[in-house]
């Protein structure tokens, strides 16, 4: 064998969990629209075959918002092509995925400025202005 690509493995497998998950998201979106109730789905809790996470991602598509946070490693927050459905990927500083969530909400909390950080910012600005 010259390379890994020559090994004849062609695993086309599926758990069948992708479509039910999309239905779960559809139900969650209705709850959000009708009662402003948010839902979070932890993708690590689902049995998924190799390639199925990518299929979920492809099915959801890319929407209007793409944000990147830098806190304990990068976090990518993307609104999917379905407004209100967000895909959040937390990575550590080695760029390894530590958690992956689908949030059905108007705005993921992780994007909002946190009160503690705002207070710290006030202190910093005040001390800089005193100098």
């Amino acid at each position, binding site marked *: 064998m010259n390379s890994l690509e020559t090994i*004849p*493995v*062609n*695993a*086309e*497998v*599926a*758990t*069948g*969990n992708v479509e*039910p*998950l999309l239905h779960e998201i559809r139900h969650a979106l209705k709850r959000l629209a009708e009662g402003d109730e948010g839902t*979070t*789905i*932890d993708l*690590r*809790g*689902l*049995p*998924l*075959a*190799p390639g*199925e996470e990518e299929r979920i991602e492809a099915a959801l598509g890319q929407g209007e918002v793409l944000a990147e*946070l830098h*806190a*304990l490693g990068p*976090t990518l927050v993307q609104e999917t092509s379905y407004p209100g459905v967000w895909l959040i990927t*937390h990575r*550590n*500083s*080695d760029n*390894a*995925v*530590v*958690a992956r*969530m689908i949030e059905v909400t108007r705005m993921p*909390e*992780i994007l909002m*400025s*946190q*009160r*503690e*950080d705002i207070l*710290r910012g006030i202190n910093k600005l005040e001390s800089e202005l005193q100098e």
Partner: protein
Amino acid sequence: MRKDQTLGEYLQAQGVSRRGFLKFCSATASLMALPPSAVAQVAEALASARRPSVIWLSFQECTGCTESLTRSHAPTVESLIFNAISLDYHHTLQAAAGYGAEAARKAAMEENAGKYLLVVDGSIPRDHPYFSTIAGISNLDMLTETAANAAAVIAVGTCAAFGGIPHAAPNPTGAVSVSDIIKDKPIIKVSGCPPIPVVITGVLAQYLTFGAIPELDEHGRPAAFFGQNIHDRCYRRPFYERGKFAETFDDEGARKGWCLYKLGCKGPTTYNACATLKWNEGVSFPIQSGHGCIGCSEPDFWDKGGFYNPISAGNWGSREALLGAAAAGAALGIGSAIAARRRQKKAQETTI
């Protein structure tokens, strides 16, 4: 991290923002198999959590369990949690040696009497006290002495949990598990050869967060991680249900990723989180890499009839039990995900 600091203070001192802390809590809740809605409670509990003293004893073992835990590259969530404990004794990792090391263990036991967490990897030889010693102290004596004032014991790895490979026939040292000796302390068993690192840190995070023992299964393992068998969570499960099996490791079935049951996969009788948490930071797990599960997190896995013999040909439970499990499993499909949610909900109810 100073001993008097809370985890929240420690992370703040490291320049971690509240947003970063929330991210840490999201990953920790996921690590503990808690529902995402529990993040707020995790954040509140972790912010005020104080650093517990941990004494780690290694007996008849191969150091694979410690390797499993420490191979994750810093600063992962696992390493942050690991930093949040005060590891006062671990003879593989500590700089101190000889009398200094033993003095550190005694000091930690005295300073934290009744409050420290005892982690044990490796089995304990019972046939002769000097089959395995540390600083001239037999494993049996060191375990009983150190467990006496521990708040709880975590038996890490199948050797500590069930006796493991040293316990395999003919068991030349009379190896036994921690729970064969310690009867008066809460014991959490984190089995696996080795255990998945995030399961070890998940249990530590659980203790750090809630200061409580998680819900355990019939073998004393945390139900959040060991509550379902690998078969029910395996992505190759649909092939099992359609009767499509690999017969050899290089046939058409193997190349197409069919079920490995006939090649000896022990997934149907093995309870662990490999199929969802996976290994090497989520890259893969044995079945995904083309080899059946060897059942390493189960009691007596080494003596159950050969890794390459189908379960039906070995000693992995009665035919009736297996058929029952298969029938129950067949009804799962996506239901396994629903069951996982239910399990997460139950875990939340029992821990928060």
